[in-house]
């Protein structure tokens, strides 16, 4: 049994109760027109005034829930949804994967954001900087603009791409130098991963690419793998638990094939594995104490005794009844001697007897049964059976009259029955003696030569196991149409159905074929019918069991592991390292998940989504494609400053893996540097806040008047925003 050390097991974290945030005071920003920065992400909503150093953040999800106790409708946001158990099923998110579609939920989320910031005026009087997706669909943009301008009456609104702003924050120019950095931004988002090249401080959106694989898809993939590995897992694994598992244990392998080759070794696989213990409940074993057990057995004995007494009583009653009947009949018979014939007949008829003989017969039967019953009461079960005598059999037929012939026939039958019974008893005795003799012989052999006996038994054991294996192989071969066994079977069937089986002459004579006349003919059905032969199997299995029992009892070197059952269910070392088995009653063990290969397999999907079924190029290939569209000089400028940002970029091993992927495809003298964002989750918001404080922010925003003229889809083109449906400044 695999006993993991204590260090390897991690328990699932307990979900903390959500904290209630108090809204900020509005006094700092009332009437000042400080820019509002909202990072509208698929997972988290980050919001705050541009002057704050850090944003407020909450899970971007809304739930409308009607509370049961007071029948109040509640609107819950973010982690607050966890506070009401029924609210989780009502969760709505503004984002459907990567696209912003649900604007009711967005309105509620923004309501929460504005309330938390303390805004108490009827309209939001701050210029807003919001994020949108790379090359966001115009529909999403139009509806968001409509929401902001019509509902909240913001004075101006600007959109930006979060990855570029994160890059901006990490490459902040010191004023008055304008922003002219070069770099390639790789942004990991919840439902996609995008690559945006930046030259001279301008994001080149036309050369950017988006891979439809992100944290959400990875979590689903990990969940699917876990469910396939543990189909009978006792508790349900939720997506949030899986995402915690992914963040804790999964990492990028620098060289995936080499890692797999390393994990091929079962020992290495066990060492690389991590165990997650899910909560479980131990079943309550009702331990009956000694006295309880005694009480139960006492009660059972009492009941048995009572039943016996009842039976004895009923027997007594029947006995008495029969005795009284006997008395009646005897007195009746005595009457016969006193009455004359006619009266006697009528008396007999009244009692229900046909004639004298019947009466006598009944009396004799009653007497015999009474005698037996009385004897049983006295002796118990042991009864002497005297050899009954059949005197009339020896007398020849001619001498007897009708009555006596009948008697003789009866006696012949009785004698035949008696003889048969005697023979059966003798057979049984003989068999018993033979069996005992055989056992005694075996015991002697065992005592004298344990080795030899053990070898003989083992050979038998092997022979039976081989027979079983052969039969299984034959059964498996029959399912395959082209195997020799099934072709032979078809030949047999064809031969049976063929006309040449019956020779021509006999056909003309009587037309029937003589199948079945010979008993051996029926054996063909066993060969044709693949399901037949189960009785043989049972016989073999029972023989095997007997042999195994004897071996287990007397041979010290034959253990449970050698028995057929354990050999058949043996799993290889690799499979048991991959998914260590636990015993049946081990509740704690059965609620454990072992992760070994999945730790690297899940992250590998970013670099090759086709292994998870998504028909798209992976990260390495897409970066290569993006870089291919630039000249060498520009390429050099881009790869000198590759910037990795986004929540999922915190998975370990990413930078090394990217370096290993990109180094071979670039000219060796080109310097390659990969940087990670300082705070991957929050840097986009910080970049936006930095930008909102500059003057440029005002020039790129769409004012309310411009919105009313252009509609919601048109924006101004600037270095950090999208290009689709944009006008130059």
């Amino acid at each position, binding site marked *: 049994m695999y006993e993991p050390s204590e260090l390897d097991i991690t328990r699932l974290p307990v979900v903390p109760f959500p904290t209630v945030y108090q809204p900020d005071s509005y006094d700092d920003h009332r009437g000042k027109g400080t820019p509002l920065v909202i990072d509208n992400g698929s997972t988290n909503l980050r919001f705050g005034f541009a002057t704050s150093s850090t944003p407020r953040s909450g899970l971007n999800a809304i739930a409308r829930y009607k509370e049961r106790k007071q029948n109040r409708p509640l609107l819950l946001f973010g982690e607050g949804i966890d506070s009401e158990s029924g609210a989780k099923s009502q969760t709505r998110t503004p984002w459907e994967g990567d696209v912003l579609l649900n604007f009711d939920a967005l309105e509620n989320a923004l309501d929460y954001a504005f309330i938390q910031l303390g805004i108490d005026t009827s309209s939001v009087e701050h210029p807003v900087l919001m994020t949108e997706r790379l090359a966001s669909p115009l529909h999403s943009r139009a509806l968001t603009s409509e929401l902001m301008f019509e509902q909240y009456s913001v004075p101006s609104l600007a959109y930006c791409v979060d990855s570029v702003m994160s890059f901006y924050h990490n490459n902040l120019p010191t004023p008055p130098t304008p922003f002219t950095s070069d770099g390639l931004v790789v942004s990991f988002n919840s439902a996609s991963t995008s690559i945006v090249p930046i030259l001279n401080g301008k994001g080149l959106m036309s050369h950017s690419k988006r891979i439809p694989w992100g944290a959400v898809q990875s979590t689903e993939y990990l969940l699917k793998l876990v469910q396939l590995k543990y189909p009978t897992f006792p508790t349900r694994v939720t997506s949030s638990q899986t995402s915690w598992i992914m963040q804790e244990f999964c990492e990028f392998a620098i060289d995936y094939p080499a890692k797999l080759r390393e994990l091929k070794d079962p020992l290495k696989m066990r060492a690389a594995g991590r165990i997650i213990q899910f909560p479980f409940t131990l079943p309550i074993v009702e331990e009956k104490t000694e006295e309880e057990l005694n009480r139960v057995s006492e009660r059972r004995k009492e009941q048995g005794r009572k039943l016996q007494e009842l039976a004895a009583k009923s027997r007594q009653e029947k006995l008495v009844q029969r005795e009284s009947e006997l008395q009646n009949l005897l007195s009746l018979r005595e009457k016969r001697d006193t009455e004359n014939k006619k009266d006697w007949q009528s008396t007999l008829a009244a009692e229900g007897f046909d004639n004298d003989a019947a009466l006598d017969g009944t009396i004799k039967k009653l007497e015999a049964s009474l005698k037996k019953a009385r004897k049983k009461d006295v002796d118990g079960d042991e009864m002497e059976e005297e050899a009954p005598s059949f005197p009339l059999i020896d007398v020849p037929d001619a001498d007897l009259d009708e009555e006596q012939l009948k008697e003789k026939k009866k006696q012949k039958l009785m004698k035949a029955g008696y003889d048969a019974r005697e023979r059966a008893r003798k057979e049984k005795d003989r068999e018993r003696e033979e069996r005992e003799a055989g056992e005694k012989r075996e015991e002697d052999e065992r005592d004298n030569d344990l080795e030899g006996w053990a070898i003989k038994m083992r050979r038998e054991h092997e022979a039976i196991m081989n027979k079983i294996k052969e039969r299984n192989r034959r059964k498996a071969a029959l399912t395959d149409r082209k195997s020799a066994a099934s072709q032979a079977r078809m030949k047999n069937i064809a031969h049976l159905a063929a006309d040449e089986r019956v020779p021509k002459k006999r056909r003309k004579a009587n037309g029937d074929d003589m199948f079945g006349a010979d008993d051996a003919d029926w054996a063909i059905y066993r060969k044709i019918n693949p399901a037949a032969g189960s009785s043989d199997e049972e016989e073999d299995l029972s023989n095997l069991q007997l042999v195994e029992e004897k071996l287990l009892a007397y041979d010290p070197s034959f253990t449970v592991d050698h028995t057929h059952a354990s050999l058949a269910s043996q799993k290889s070392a690799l499979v048991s390292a991959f998914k260590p088995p636990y015993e049946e009653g081990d509740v704690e063990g059965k609620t454990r998940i072992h992760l070994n290969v*999945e730790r690297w397999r899940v992250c590998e999907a970013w670099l090759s989504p086709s292994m998870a079924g998504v028909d*798209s190029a992976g990260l390495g290939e897409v970066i290569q494609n993006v870089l291919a569209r630039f000249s060498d000089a520009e390429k050099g400028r881009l790869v000198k400053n590759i910037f990795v940002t986004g929540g999922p970029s915190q998975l370990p091993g990413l930078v090394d893996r990217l370096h290993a992927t990109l180094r071979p495809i670039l000219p060796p003298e080109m310097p390659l540097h990969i940087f990670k964002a300082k705070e991957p989750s929050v840097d986009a918001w910080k970049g936006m806040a930095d930008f909102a404080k500059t003057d440029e922010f005002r020039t790129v925003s769409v004012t309310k008047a411009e919105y009313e003229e252009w509609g919601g889809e048109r924006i101004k083109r600037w270095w950090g925003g999208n*290009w689709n449906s944009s006008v130059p400044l």
Partner: protein
Amino acid sequence: MAIDGEAAPSSQEEDMPTYCSIEAPPSVLPQKHYCDITGLEAPYTDPATGLRYHDKSVYDLIKGLSTTVAKDYLSARGVNPIVK
């Protein structure tokens, strides 16, 4: 297309990125085969179910799987063998 000797209009409109146009294309690199059960390298494929497997012991495991479980494994890879 040049009209009357004029230079062809700059193809700025075609460069305009939309949400669908910036999606990554399908991969052209040859895909490695990984075992559907264990995730290790898979040089072999089971002809009956189509599952890829790592070695003999994993094959024994595959032989014992029911068809629904085998289809689940395939759908994790994105192969949906549902015959309509």
